[in-house]
Structures are given as C-alpha cells and as structure tokens.
C-alpha cells in the first residue's frame, strides 16, 4: 500500500506507543528495572497543548528523521524524567535523584548533560528500530541535539515556533520505584510530508483506519490509556535491604523513604590509633639512632610517634589492643628463624629505608569520586590501593577490601538474577564516606622494621610515604615488604623447613 502523509499521521500514536514501549523494555533490560509507560493523551493542535506539561526544566531530544517522516521532531521529558532517567543510568543515590526532581536547578541538570544525552541516544535507538520494523518508508532517525533547560524561554532552541502546528502524544512513564513523570513525542506537521513512495504496513488493531481526511483529528485521542508494560519480571526477593550497611554520616546520601532505597554507605572507617605507643623491647640488631617517623596526617595533629615506635615493637602480630609486655612480632619472627652464618643481611634488610621499599606510582582520586570510579581506577592500574585527596593533600586511603565492603554483594555475577537498582546504587557511594582515615604515614627514612611494626600494630597494609612537606612520595604495601624479604639474604630459612625453602612471614 502506498503511504501518504495521512497514512503515517494516522499511525503516529500507535508508532509512538510502540517506540516508547521499546524504550521501556530496552531500559528495563539494560538496567534490570521495571519501566512502564502509559499514553495519557494524543492529538493535534499547537505547541500550546504540549507546553503546559513541560513548564519547568526539561530534556528535549531533537531527532532528524528521513524517509516516512522527514524533518526534525522532538521527544520531551519533564523535570522528573530528566533527573530520574539521567540519575538512574549513572546510578546516583535515590535521595539525590528525588531531591533533583523536586528542587533541581539548571546547574544540577547541566551536571547530568552527558547522561541525558546517552538516555536520548538509547531512546532514539529504540525509536529507530521500531520504525524500521513497522514503517517501511522509514529510513533513519538521528538524534541531532539534546536541549536541557526551560524549553519555552526560547523555543527556537528546540526548533519549534510558538504557534507551531503539531501532532503529539503524551505519556506517563515510571522507572522502578521512582515517581512517575511525563514524556511526549511532538511531530511538527511539516515533518509529515512523507515521500510519495513510503509504504506503511497495515495498521494494528489499535490504529485507526488509514486515509482519514481530517489531519487535525487524525491522531486519535486515546479513549483508554495504552498501558505499555516493560514486561520485566520482578525478582522474587525480599524487599528488605541487603547488605547491612549503616546510615551515612550525613543526610547527603541518606536512605530514602522506604526499604527499597539505595543501600547507604558504610560509615567512615576510622583507623584505630592508640594515643600512645607502649614501650617494649627493641631489636638489638637495629641501630638506635635511626630517625624513623610514623605519623597521623589526617584527622588528628601530626603526632610524631615514630621515634618511639621504632623502640616499641608491637606485642602481637595483628592486634589493635594495647601492647603488653610480650615479645614483639619481629622478636617472634627472629626467634623462629634459623639465622645463617651471616646475620648482617637481616640487619640490613630491617634497616632498609622506606624510600627504597616504596612504590612511587600512586593512584589518586577525589573525595567526591564514587565507588564505581575507584573500582575502575583499581582495575585500570592494577592496584589495590588508592589515595584520596585534592591538590596533593592526603585526606584518606581506600583499599580493595574497603571498596568490596561498601558495595552490595548482589553485584556479583552469580547473584545477577536478584540484582536490583538499589544494589547498583551502592556503586554511586562517594568515597569520602568510606575511606579510611586518619591515614598513618611514614617518612622516607623510616626503616623496614618500623614499617612492619606499624602495619602489624595498626592492621594497615598500606602506608603512604611523605616528605617533610607532607607531599606523598609513594606507598608501601605489605606486598612491597614481602618482596623485600624474599629478595633478602637467602640464608634466612624458616625453622623446621629445609634450607631451600622460601622464607615466609606469616
């Protein structure tokens, strides 16, 4: 059947339904969420009919159509749609999204420009696919721009005249547990001047008969809302939040109004730093005059305890309890070693300065970065530790285990079936809420013995090395320590094992 502009016009509402339905399905499948869309109204008139639904901030995607439709048409999302869809795809905390829906400013919207554009790309991809399948005259849809702002302050920016004659279809869309919002497809009448050879398949049951001669009324007003479910099966899991995270330290990322909210970040992990380092017996193999320094750089004054620490080995290998009069971990290690004929190697090893142990390559992130950002940094740089700070000022430390503890266990592939947006939201937690602080650091001339003691005493497996101006020079991880031990004098053997055995610190 040869299509006319009237043919296409008569099917616009049905095609819009199918296209928004496809978008809901695509979005739902991509982000494992329930997304639904219901047509509220369809018809023809001027943009004034559309305007009343989009008085506040909006995202307007401009779509260049070729083929059955020819020209630019517009896909609108109101303020709710702008912030919910954009925030949803970048996994902003639910509270932030809901705040933006109510009070979001143009600056808030601008921060989501990239996300809004991607939503538009996905949307137009869905529309293009539906039209390709259901409208033979269709050639291509290309999203040419995404406008964010108040569309009617200067409607030329969305390529609509104030009195433009249009056909429109207005929908209510709902994403997961977020409040529903309004979206619309607006087709200027000039777009309907389709090429003469466009062919439109026979309309489905919901579409009116082709060939209606009254263009102004051809786009039917929906007698009953066309419910467009995304056909997503809600996982059969409890609504109780899983993960057991505690409330965040401020309302900034607090939980939402019900239990189906993003899991709030764990409270900041304060390092347990004893006020005083207890005295215990030092290592006779280590010179007394080594100026080693271990200090706290964040959260408390730079209490230099290092000189004392070197003389005060911890009483237990990994225990934050106050030291007692028992032998230090290094004393125990040394007692368990069968020392070879030359003990100088061990002495040299334990006197190795931090500058020769550290890894100079350090990965930083901003306190406002998200867990997702840090995971990517760790993967990109194959590191288990990221320093948090700005302008070289160290504010906190993140380890892989800290990150692992902050995200929902349901993000693991094995639990994919039960994964919900709330689980994804844990990836959006800002690292400032979960980073370890205060951070213990060492000076470049701190010796290995002190580094080991500090790690054992306070349980940290990573110590930044800072100079006198508190500039970070590198980090020492427990792996760096182990590497130095393994590289050391091979005459060190573990008691009871053959001399060839690789020395192992446990």
């Amino acid at each position, binding site marked *: 059947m040869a299509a006319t502009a009237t043919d296409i016009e008569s099917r616009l509402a049905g095609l819009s339904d199918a296209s928004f339905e496809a978008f809901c399905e695509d*979005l739902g499948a991509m982000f494992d969420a329930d997304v639904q869309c219901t047509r509220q109204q369809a018809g023809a008139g001027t943009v004034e009919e559309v305007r009343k639904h989009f008085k506040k901030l909006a995202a307007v995607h401009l779509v260049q159509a070729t083929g059955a439709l020819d020209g630019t048409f517009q896909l609108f999302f109101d303020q709710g749609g702008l912030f919910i869809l954009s925030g949803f*795809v970048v996994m902003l905390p639910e509270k932030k999204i809901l705040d933006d829906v109510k009070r979001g400013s143009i600056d808030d919207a601008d921060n989501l420009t*990239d996300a809004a554009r991607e939503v538009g*790309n996905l949307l137009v*991809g869905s529309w293009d*696919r539906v039209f390709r399948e259901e409208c033979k005259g269709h050639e*291509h849809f290309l999203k040419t721009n995404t406008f964010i702002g108040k569309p009617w302050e200067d409607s030329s920016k969305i390529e609509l005249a104030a009195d433009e004659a249009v056909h429109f279809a207005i929908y209510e869309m709902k994403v997961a547990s977020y409040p529903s919002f309004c979206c619309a497809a607006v087709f200027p009448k000039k777009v309907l001047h389709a090429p003469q050879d466009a062919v439109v398949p026979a309309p489905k049951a919901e579409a009116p008969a082709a060939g209606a001669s009254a263009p102004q009324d051809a786009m039917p007003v929906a007698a009953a809302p066309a419910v467009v479910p995304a056909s997503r099966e809600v996982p059969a899991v409890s609504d109780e939040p899983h993960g057991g995270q505690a409330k965040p330290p401020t309302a900034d990322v607090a939980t939402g109004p019900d239990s189906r909210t993003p899991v709030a970040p764990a409270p900041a992990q304060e390092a347990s730093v004893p006020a005083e380092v207890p005295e215990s017996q030092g290592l006779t193999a280590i010179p007394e005059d080594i100026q080693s320094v271990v200090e706290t750089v964040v959260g408390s004054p730079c209490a230099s305890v290092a000189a004392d620490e070197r003389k005060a080995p911890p009483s237990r290998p990994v225990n934050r309890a106050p030291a007692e009069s028992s032998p230090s971990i290094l004393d125990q290690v040394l007692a368990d070693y069968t020392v070879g004929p030359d003990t100088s190697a061990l002495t040299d090893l334990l006197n190795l300065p931090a500058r020769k142990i550290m890894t100079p390559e350090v990965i930083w992130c901003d306190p406002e970065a998200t867990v997702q950002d840090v995971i990517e940094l760790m993967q*990109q740089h194959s590191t288990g530790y990221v320093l948090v700070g700005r302008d070289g000022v160290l504010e906190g430390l993140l380890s892989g285990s800290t990150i692992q503890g902050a995200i929902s266990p349901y993000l693991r592939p094995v639990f994919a079936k039960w994964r919900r947006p709330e689980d994804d939201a844990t990836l959006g937690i800002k690292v400032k809420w979960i980073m370890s602080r205060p951070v213990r650091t060492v000076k470049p001339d701190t010796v290995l013995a002190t580094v080991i003691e500090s790690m054992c005493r306070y349980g940290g497996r990573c110590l930044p090395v800072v100079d006198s101006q508190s500039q970070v020079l590198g980090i020492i991880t427990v792996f760096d320590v182990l590497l130095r031990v393994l590289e050391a004098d091979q005459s060190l053997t573990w008691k009871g094992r053959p001399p060839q055995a690789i020395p192992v610190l446990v």
Partner: protein
Amino acid sequence: MGKSLMIVDDSATMRKIIMRTVRMSGLEFDRTEEAGSGVEALQKLESGPVDVILCDINMPEMNGTELVKKARELASCSGTKIVMVSTESAQDLIDQVMSDGADGYITKPFTPEKFQEKLAPLLN
C-alpha cells in the same frame, strides 16, 4: 593469562554503563582501560595491546570505523578482537564495519546477556 579490555566511547556515562554491563555479564577481564576518543585509543594501543576492544561508532575526531581500520594496521593489534557498540542498527552500516575489520557488533540498548553472547565466543 588474564584477558584485557578497552572501552572506547566519547561519553563517560556510556563507558561506565558498558563497564557495568560487562561485569554483570559474568565475563572477567584482568585489565580494563578506557579511551574517550579514537585517537586516545590508538595511543594506548601503541603502547600495549588488549584482547578485546568495545568501540562506539559515532565519535568526534576519529569515528569507530576509522579506528578499526587504523587499529588493524598496528602489529600489536593483530590478535585484538574489536566489537562495535552503537545505537545504529542499519544492516548496511553493520556490514560495512564488519568488512572494515570489526569482529562483532552490539546494538544499543544492550544487556549483559547480549554481551555474554557476543563476547564469550571471541574470548575463547
């Protein structure tokens, strides 16, 4: 030896979405990199190859099809699998990029299952 992945897309948002979807797919990569343009991707590829590239088509400076052609000229990328990820679903475009040297094509919107279906055979 673990596999490595590079995601090339001018949108940071889309790179994150792709990264997340890859993780949800159950595919495991020991190393992942990102590039915001074809030029940046080539610079990274010259310093070290990767096993799989997921590449957008519509990008400024150098689009995805150009990147495929140039990457195929790099000796270090002889074994690299390049999979295009795009909202463009026109068959003629898909045929074109496949003939230019791409190993696969994933249309947006995508799902973890689609990534598993398209990438797992290439990794094996």
